[in-house]
Every structure is written in structure tokens, then in C-alpha cells.
């Protein structure tokens, strides 16, 4: 087990270094850092001096090591677009994205799992067929279109919910939150549904197919023969055994939620990190792009690592001396 964890750690570091290399090339060779700092008209001698001072005349590997060192301390320089420090820009917008992704994940899990259990237990029931049809549409409709349709229905036609922005927020230190006021919570509803719908359909389909499989096994028949209640069989025995793949998929999807938040944030004018990234792509704001890339890379690597470790916690077969299965 230790060998496995070490191998995964080395792999994760390799992935991070590759992402760092891509970020570094973006940062250093796409666009001209000097021109973006002092403008076109500065005399050549002055530019040369600045170049020397910033270490841009060092060899590429030395610059790369400096870049990684700065990145590890969260230093990515100034945004080309707003001239603010990149780390502050990102930190300001992080709470909005994290709260949105969290609510979307909660929505996907707490609606997706019951829907999946139900349509796995009663696959022929009309509502199960309805769930299946809805999930097919959920997979086929692009996220932004779902968002627009929700806005049209609930904001423009019915006037029930706000369609853009975070509404009312309160600030605790550097963290701004939506959770303290009714207006803030209302503003979260539509974006969370939009962002979570794809994950919901994914979880529902997964739970459904796992449930269908588990219900056919002998130990479920045996549990029935023992006279256990339906409730104990369905939830205590069947659902518990479907949860291993659900944990994996949900974990891996958590990263996608944060990445896909950029589409939802644009639809709902939600001031998060994703919206910042889109603006930086539109303006070719390379420092922000490089920092976002590193951040998402770190996030994905961490999530993959945690999910791999969760296998050991959830599945007892992987623990103990049987771990050397790869050698067989």
C-alpha cells in the first residue's frame, strides 16, 4: 500500500511539473512581458536594464525554477489587464466559485442518488422511464443552454428568482459568503441547478445500473429469505454496496464542477474564478491564464490522489497483504 501511495505521489508531482512547464512557456514566451509592463515607447537601454533586473536574461531552466518557486508561494505577477496582483484577483473570486460548486455537488448528490435508487429498484415504473428520458436530455443539452432556459422560465417569465450576480453577500475576513441571507441563497439556486445537472444525470445513471446489478445477487435474495424489511435490504445492503463507484465518480467530478463553473458563471454573471479566466482568455491576459492553469492542475491532482486513497478506506479487499495484486 505504501509503495502504491508513493508511486501515485511521484506521478502527481510529474503531472504538476508538466502543467508548470506549460504555464511557464505561456508566461515567458507568449506575448512580451516587458512591453506589457512599460509600454511600447520605452528606450531599448531601459528595457534591457529591466530585463536584466527581472532575470529574463537568465537561462530558461533557471527561469523555470524561479517560476515554480514563485508559483509555490502563490506569486504570479501582475495581470496585464488590470495591473493588480494575480493572486489577489484569484483569491477575491475564489469563495464565489467554491460556494457555487459546493451547492451544485450537494444538489447532484442529494437528488441524483434517490432518483438512481428509485429507478434501479423499479426500472419499469413510468417515473423511472421519465428519469431516464430527463437524463438523456441532461447529457445532450449544453450547460449554458440549460442556464438560459432556467433564466427564461424562472426569472423572465415567472419573476421568482434572480438571474444574475451573487445577490446579497457578507464578508468574513477575505471570504465572502452567500449563506447568511435569504437573498444570497436565492441567487445560488439557479446557478447551482445549472452546474449540477450534468453531474446529477451521471450519478443517477451510475446508481441505477449498480442497483440493477446488486439486486440480482444472491446475498440480496438471502436477505429477503431472512425476512428483512425492504427498507433494510434496499438501503442497508444494496445501496451501501453501490457507493464505491459513486464516491469515485463524485470525487473526480468535483474537479470538473469547478472547471465547468466557468460556463455557469458566464451565464449568470457570477463573479467567480471561471469568469476571471474567460476574461483573461478574451484579453490574452497570460499571467492570469497561467495562474488559473496551475491552480486547476493542483486541484485535479489533489482530487485524484484523495480519490485513490479513498479506495483503500472504502474497499477492505484492497487493504492488507492482498495489495500486491498488481504482481500477479
Amino acid at each position: 500500500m505504501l509503495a502504491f501511495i508513493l508511486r501515485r505521489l511521484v506521478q502527481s508531482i510529474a503531472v504538476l511539473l508538466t502543467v508548470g512547464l506549460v504555464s511557464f512557456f505561456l508566461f515567458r514566451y507568449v506575448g512580451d512581458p516587458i512591453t506589457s509592463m512599460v509600454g511600447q515607447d520605452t528606450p531599448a537601454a531601459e528595457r534591457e536594464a529591466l530585463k536584466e533586473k527581472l532575470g529574463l536574461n537568465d537561462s530558461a531552466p533557471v527561469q523555470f525554477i524561479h517560476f515554480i518557486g514563485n508559483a509555490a508561494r502563490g506569486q504570479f505577477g501582475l495581470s496585464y489587464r488590470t495591473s493588480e496582483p494575480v493572486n489577489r484577483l484569484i483569491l477575491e473570486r475564489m469563495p464565489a466559485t467554491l460556494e457555487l460548486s459546493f451547492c451544485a455537488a450537494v444538489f447532484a448528490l442529494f437528488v441524483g442518488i434517490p432518483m438512481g435508487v428509485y429507478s434501479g429498484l423499479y426500472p419499469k415504473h413510468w417515473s423511472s422511464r421519465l428519469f431516464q428520458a430527463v437524463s438523456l436530455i441532461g447529457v445532450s443539452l449544453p450547460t449554458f443552454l440549460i442556464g438560459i432556459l432556467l433564466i427564461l422560465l424562472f426569472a423572465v417569465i415567472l419573476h421568482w428568482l434572480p438571474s444574475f450576480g451573487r445577490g446579497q453577500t457578507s464578508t468574513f475576513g477575505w471570504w465572502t459568503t452567500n449563506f447568511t441571507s435569504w437573498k444570497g441563497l436565492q441567487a445560488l439556486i439557479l446557478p447551482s441547478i445549472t452546474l449540477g445537472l450534468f453531474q446529477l444525470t451521471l450519478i443517477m445513471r451510475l446508481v441505477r445500473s449498480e442497483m440493477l446489478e446488486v439486486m440480482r445477487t444472491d446475498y440480496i435474495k438471502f436477505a429477503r429469505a431472512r425476512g428483512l424489511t425492504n427498507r433494510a435490504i434496499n438501503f442497508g445492503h444494496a445501496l451501501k454496496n453501490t457507493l464505491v463507484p459513486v464516491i469515485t465518480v463524485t470525487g473526480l467530478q468535483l474537479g470538473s464542477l469547478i472547471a465547468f463553473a466557468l460556463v455557469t458563471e458566464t451565464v449568470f454573471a457570477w463573479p467567480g474564478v471561471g469568469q476571471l479566466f474567460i476574461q483573461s482568455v478574451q484579453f490574452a491576459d497570460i499571467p492570469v491564464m497561467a495562474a488559473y492553469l496551475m491552480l486547476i492542475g493542483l486541484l485535479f491532482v489533489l482530487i485524484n490522489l484523495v480519490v485513490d486513497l479513498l479506495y483503500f478506506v472504502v474497499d477492505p479487499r484492497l487493504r492488507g497483504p492482498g495489495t500486491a495484486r498488481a504482481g500477479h
Partner: protein
Amino acid sequence: MASGTSWLSRAADSDIWWSFKSSTLTVIAAAVTVLIIAIAFLSPLIAPHTPFDPSTLSLSDGLKPPAWMQDGDWAFPLGTDDQGRDVLSSIMYGTRLSLVVGLASVIVSMLLGISLGLVSGYVGGATDAVIMRIADVQLTFPAILVALLIDGVVRGLISVQRHDEIALFVIIGAIGLSFWVQYARTVRGSVLVEKSKEYVQAARVIGLSPVLIMVRHVLPNVTGPVLVIATINLGLAIISEATLSFLGVGLPSTQPSLGTLIRLGNELLQSGEWWITVFPGVTLAALVLAVNLLGDWLRDALNPKLR
């Protein structure tokens, strides 16, 4: 023996055709796909207006609702946008662009993935390791992020005005580069299996070139899986293009795809002009749903385990 009729009758007799005929949903999906493709590519002939010729536009036609509503005009069946452009004609031309980008980027990623997969599997060693590690790193990120990043880099390298001119190629390249991994992995796996078989060894012994062996002997074994990936990826590529254009980093408003049309209409949604957004959206959804259903069917039909 190889006359046209015998090929047709053999095709009509095959398992695939039978499985196609027996699935009503698939037949409907195929019909919808063919219909949308036909209308899109015939748009210069059958569209009622030429929406992107400024001389035919009149602002007094602006923001007309669909024809069946009050103030509607049958000259503009699905209404007009704020510039007086006919929504129906915009959708026809826009669908054509969406399809062109989708198909072209699928071809780009397919060619790239197949060749990298062949090289990786056949050459092996360090080349294989490098290609597959790059694939691993890329798979860590969602495809849309990779496409966005490529688009952003190109914007950093060239001027904005120049970017609008070549936006079509940039977006095809960006989406194409973000979907190659699946093909490469599939092809590589199949190459590894076939490489050790006797007929490939025999071909090597008689001195055929590696390129010829790969193209003539190894590639035919992967057409099925590659076709399935391509169909499923076509839906994904169309969604990616629409998403990028919606985010404002895809096709410009002078050259609008379905995604661009939805973005432009979205700005007017709050004031109640829903038709400018909803009709392109419905078209996009129908197209992607139909292509996805075809992809699902093809995957099941070509899977020997399910027969």
C-alpha cells in the same frame, strides 16, 4: 461479384442494418440528423433571406416576433433580431458553421489521435512513454479547458483583428487538439495486440515498410471503435464549439454559429425577446441529441458482447 446490387443486398441483410431498422428511436434520430445536415448545407439555396448581407437588412424589421404571434410577419417565420436579421435564415447558416466546425475538428482529432496511437504502439519505448504521459496529463483536464487555453494562447500570439479572420481555423484546431487522446489510446492498444500476431510478423519478414503494415493491416482492425468514438465526439465537438462561441471566444458575430447566435440573443432575453435565443437553442439541442442517439446505437450495434 462485386457489383453494386450485391453490395446493397449484402448490406440490407447485415446485422447492423437489422439492428438499425428495429430501433425506432435510432431511425428517427438518423432522419433528424440527415434533415438538419441537408437544410444546413443547402442554406444558400433555400434560406428565405441572406442574413449577413447588410444591404438586405432594414432596422425597421428589427425585433419582430415569430409569425404566429401578434405583430408577426410571415416574411420572417421565426421573427427577427435587433438588426432586422431573419432568425430562421441565421439558424440555417449558423447550423452549417456549427456542423463544419464539429466535423472538421473531429477529423483533426481523429487523424492526430490515430497517427500518434499508431506511432506510440508500433515504435514503443521512449516515444510511447512520452506520448502516453502527455495523454495522461491532458486527460487530467476537461477538454473545454484545453480548448479555451489553446484559443487564449493564439490570441496572445496574434492581433485581435487577425484573430477574427482566422477564428474558424483556430477553433477547429483548439477543439481538435483537445479530443485526440481517446483515439490514440484505442489505436495504441489495438496495435499492441496485432503487432505480435503472425500475419504482421510475416508482413515484416517479407520486407513491407512499417507505414504500409500499419495502414493496411493494423488500421482496419480499429475502424469500428474509432467510428464509435468519432460519432460520440461529434456531439461533444458541436457542444464545445457552441460553448466557446457562447463564451465569446469562438466564432465572431460576423460569422455566427449556433453558439454565437445564442450569445447575441441572450443579451436581449431579459427584455422578453425570447425567440432570438430559444430557436437556435432548440436547433442545437435537437442536433446534439440526434447525433448522441446515433452514437449510442452504433456503440451497442458494434459491440459483439451485446449481440
